[in-house]
């Protein structure tokens, strides 16, 4: 075998360098863990909700509000003249189970008409669409964030008389997978300004730090609800 490290001084330096490298790596991982903790703490929020079970039609409806998501920054964006889309998607599951029984969604698209000085609000739900005009931000927020009577399942999917929980996410200006791919390809800059040969380790071309920031949406919040027992209603009697 090759006799390496016979010099005690070199061995000492080697292990010191290795120790420092390991410490640096651990510090980075700890920072990462901290960042992870920061993000996970704001990832899933518990929201108040309400289920109605229409016993006559065999349909489950969900009421949910997320007014707080539309903060001052988002409110100012509403009147920029370009569409703002707020999408709610949710699954309904048995309490204590992660297997979804049904899903539902609502899309709210808000467009400020610059010359009319009014908002056009288009709300799309399973099986329905509604368009309305309002001149106030409050009107927009009410239409988009106070979800009332959203169809969330039917008798074939939801057993009667069970406790349920809803979970999902709210996205502001979600980016489609196609557009996301287009953006990423555009942002990517091949590192071909140097040589293709090995040995030129530095000067790997900077390819755009913001690429990683392009997520699925401009803003996103995951939520869950408490365990709920649907309130029985009778649509025919009403």
């Amino acid at each position, binding site marked *: 075998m090759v006799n390496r490290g016979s010099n005690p001084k070199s061995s000492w330096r080697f292990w010191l360098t290795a120790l420092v490298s390991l410490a640096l790596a651990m510090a980075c991982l700890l920072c990462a863990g901290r960042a992870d903790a920061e993000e996970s703490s704001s990832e899933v929020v518990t929201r108040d909700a309400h289920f109605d079970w229409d016993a006559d039609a065999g349909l489950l409806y969900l009421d949910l509000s997320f007014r707080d998501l539309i903060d001052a920054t988002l409110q100012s964006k509403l009147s920029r003249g370009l569409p703002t889309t707020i999408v709610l998607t949710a699954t309904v599951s048995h309490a204590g189970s992660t297997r979804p029984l049904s899903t539902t969604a609502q899309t709210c698209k808000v467009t400020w008409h610059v010359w009319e000085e009014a908002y056009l609000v288009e709300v799309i739900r399973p099986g329905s669409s509604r368009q309305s005009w309002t001149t106030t931000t409050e009107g927009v927020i009410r239409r988009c964030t106070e979800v009332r009577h959203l169809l969330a399942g039917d008798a074939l999917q939801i057993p009667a008389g069970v406790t349920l929980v809803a979970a999902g*996410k709210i996205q502001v200006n979600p980016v489609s997978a196609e557009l996301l791919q287009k953006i990423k390809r555009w942002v990517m800059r091949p590192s071909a300004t140097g040589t293709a040969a090995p040995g030129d380790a*530095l000067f790997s071309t900077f390819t755009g730090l913001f690429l990683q920031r392009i997520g699925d949406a401009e803003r996103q919040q995951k939520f869950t609800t408490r365990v709920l027992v649907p309130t029985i209603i009778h649509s025919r009697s009403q």
Partner: protein
Amino acid sequence: MQRPRGSASSRNRRALVSSPVGRGFELASAALTLLLAAQSAFAESVPASPGPDSGAAPAVATGDASPAPEPLAPEPLAPAPGSSAASGRDCPCLGPELETRAGPTPLAVRYTLEGVEVRGNTRTRAHVVLRYVPFKQGDVFDVDDPEVELSRYRLLGTGFFRDVQFSLRKGSSRGWVVLVIDVVERPTIVLNDVRMGISADADTQGNRRPLTAYAGVDVAETNLLGTGITLGSAMAVAQDQLALRVRFLDPTFLGSSWMTSGTLLYNDARDFFGNAAVLKDDPSGNSSSESALVSYKRFGGSVGVGRDLSIATQFWLNYRLESIDASYPLEASHMRGFRTEPIDFDVVRGHSVLSTLRATLDHDTRDHPFLPTRGWHAAVTAEVGLLPVASDYEYQRIEVEASHWWHLPWHDHVLRLELFAGAISGDAPFFEQYYVGDFSDFLPSRVLGVNFDRRPAPNFLNTDIVEVRYGKYAFKLATEYRIPLFRGHRSIYGIDLFASAGIYGVAGSRDITSPPVGYSGWSRVPVDLTGNVGFRMDTSAGGFVFAFSNVLGFIPVRGKGPAGGQ
């Protein structure tokens, strides 16, 4: 009446909503798209049963676009031109909470663009911002055009801005608007690369000495004086070695689609030759040591032009001119296998000139620059030494490299397959040849062209790879497996654990025509295994790799060849 230009999506939308059937189809497809896009993991979907709002007649009509400066306002609800609604919120036609239940009739909101205004840019010039925005004065502007959002991300992708927001404001007459681009600039000095490691080198007499450290750093200003030009500098230092480089890149030369680049380099470096039992004859007399040193200085640069051939393909042409000043022993020999042979230093003693022309075709479909999960990255490079233009080195080089990434169906794991093959013919200087450390992860690779380590390859396969330091032929076939550990959107975007393994070979002409004495059969094929394990971290400051092969490389593995070299 002439129809204005509209986006493909808006044209398709008009066709879809031309009948009630089309409207229903669009509603269903829109709902389905949203459901699928938002939660692909969801198991079942809600049946499209009639909702409480369905069946109502559309109260909002979609009109044909017209070239007149008039937005396509909903006729029954829109205030008449010139009414008070145009100037205030007390619209007589629209109550603050007026609501209609409607079918899925989309409104194509279009204006005529009066101009584009850039705000918030203190350093970046407005024309640099406008390069990335395809809208011009007089265009019909569709607020639903996907190009709007794409342009925003283009601007974010430059790295010049922390935030970019588009908005519209009224133009000088009804129906005309001004597109306002608000930008928030960010520091554009970026850290491209940091390298640190330990190496085993030799002193000025060629004798082995304790482990030493080396380091390299590369920083760049990506928006020089607000012009969008990148100016970068890099430095690598080790004991008695120094490398400096300055790089320039203009992604849009004189506003054209051509890119230009330039590089200046300075190396004051040395390299270590000889496998074992090195005898040398230098001005101080005959001596023996463990290495014969070449001390050399390189100074020069390159200029290049490039062009995007497609969204994923670039072509570059570079001319390089360098002045080289090298000194090394008058004569030197070493043990190659069991035979003593002269050392060929592959560089002209004293002053020489290197002049080359290089063409590179690069194809990149990766979905991410640092932690790709799918796609290709392939490059073909051809280089020729320009002997008629006062070059002392006549050689030709051809290289092919390709990597492919697969996103595996379990837990977002990623598999990469990498292939490299290169060949040089002629008299290339040693620093242009293939170095084993660039292929074996267990040796430090060259940084800015500088070699820090005197050791041979580990030799897991017990071949004559330990006799090879530089070669004119090289290949590598490797695979890498990555496991995502963390994904974030703040300072750290991602951390992956990776492990790689591969096989490589480096050979000179002499290793093929006259293999070293003492090897037989397959051991005369200079190949070896390589591998690495560590973490890849993608952060807001750049990408970092914490790998352990550099340390593992100090564990002796069959370190002796027949000549007893190490």
